[in-house]
């Protein structure tokens, strides 16, 4: 049941070096650089995104993900969910408006898998980049690199994904869209949605808490994914796997790494989900095909390389 959470809004990623990170996120992915704040964090967005920013990069000596934030309908919803998060047992912290430039008050909370999440109701909307608000053209001419359209979702690894599923279902109103079950019915992967997308966030069971597998950015077509692959070779970027298709979500995809070892996905297409749909299930004995539909074999790196 929907609880007023609308969509993914932002992700803050830790990088070892900002210049190298901008080579990746701005010049290679084609995200739009928005601004740098007083802490030295750099804000970026995909060109189709209406909000001021969706990606925040922070220099640190340990790469990974700080938090991912979701936008809720309004301040009443924010208050309601704040109380429900406390009642659920989350450690909840209020981040004042303006701590991220252009973003309203945020409610930050922890989760059984060890990841930090946020909800917020207000963020400055600067409109889609490079096209007019009224009578918009199809796309702006001066995009660079892969020309990713938006931050789409992230995949997180941690223990007790069942606990995080309960948090996201009961408190935040996400649906379980797709899953992988082992022979005992134990869920080892879960793809959650708060929209019609196959995933707005995904989790894989893993013993270390709070690990970051990838942030994913949307492309329009398979041709765009192949073009991204060409750019990865031209720029000698560290490739993980692809281009290929997933069994889970059926998205067409390629995975590669930023210069700090954080994994990035660009993808297109995939399944849709309505709230009355049962979850799509893959069995663990078909995990290879579930993750890499063409090879049907897992590469160990996909499971073990995390930040």
């Amino acid at each position, binding site marked *: 049941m929907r609880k007023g959470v609308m969509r993914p809004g932002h992700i803050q990623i830790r990088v*070892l070096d900002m210049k190298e990170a901008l080579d990746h996120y701005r010049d290679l992915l084609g995200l739009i650089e928005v601004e740098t704040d007083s802490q030295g964090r750099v804000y970026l967005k995909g060109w189709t995104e209406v909000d001021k920013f969706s990606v925040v990069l922070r220099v640190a000596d340990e790469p990974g993900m700080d938090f991912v934030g979701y936008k809720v309908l309004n301040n009443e919803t924010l208050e309601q969910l704040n109380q429900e998060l406390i009642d659920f047992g989350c450690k909840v912290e209020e981040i004042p408006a303006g701590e991220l430039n252009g973003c309203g008050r945020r409610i930050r909370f922890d989760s059984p898998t060890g990841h930090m999440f946020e909800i917020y109701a207000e963020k400055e909307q600067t409109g889609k980049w490079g096209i007019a608000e009224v009578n918009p053209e199809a796309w702006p001419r001066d995009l660079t690199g892969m020309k990713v359209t938006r931050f789409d979702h992230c995949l997180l690894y941690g223990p007790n994904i069942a606990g995080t599923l309960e948090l996201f279902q009961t408190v935040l109103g996400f649906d379980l869209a797709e899953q992988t079950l082992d022979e005992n019915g134990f869920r080892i992967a879960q793809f959650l949605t708060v929209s019609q997308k196959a995933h707005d966030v995904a989790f894989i069971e893993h013993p270390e808490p709070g690990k970051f597998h990838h942030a994913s950015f949307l492309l329009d077509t398979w041709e765009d994914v192949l073009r991204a692959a060409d750019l990865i070779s031209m720029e000698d970027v560290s490739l993980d796997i692809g281009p290929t298709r997933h069994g889970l979500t059926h998205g067409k995809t390629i995975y590669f*790494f930023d210069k*700090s070892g954080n994994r990035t996905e660009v993808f297109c297409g995939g399944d849709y989900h309505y709230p009355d749909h049962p979850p799509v299930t893959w069995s663990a004995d078909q995990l290879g095909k579930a993750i890499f539909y063409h090879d049907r074999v897992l590469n160990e790196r996909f499971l*073990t390389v995390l930040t």
Partner: protein
Amino acid sequence: MTGKKLYRIEVVNRKQAFYCAEDQVLLTGMERQNISCIDVGCRGGGCGVCKVRIIKGEYETKRMSRTHISTTEEEKCFALACQVLPRSDLLIESDQYIALQTSPYQQPKADKTINVKNELRIRI
């Protein structure tokens, strides 16, 4: 390769060696020669999979995640091979990365590998 110094990198625990140019990190040197004696992860100093110990020789390192190389480990010549530039021939030991626990759905590695890693765990 004209004008660039090449150094011999011997990986003692795998009984293999490769050559690496002075402006190349060890992992790139190894991958370019289609040799596999250091596990390859993100290639960005973030994931820890290519952790090695340098036994002998001169080298420089680029920035590495503190999650995987603490200050103490750095002083004890541990490094991530994707961030190490050779400054002389090197003797190194690979397979220094130890995942905290094995994920329940991952295939266990061959017994031999596990034994090797357990010995390392004890020694470290």
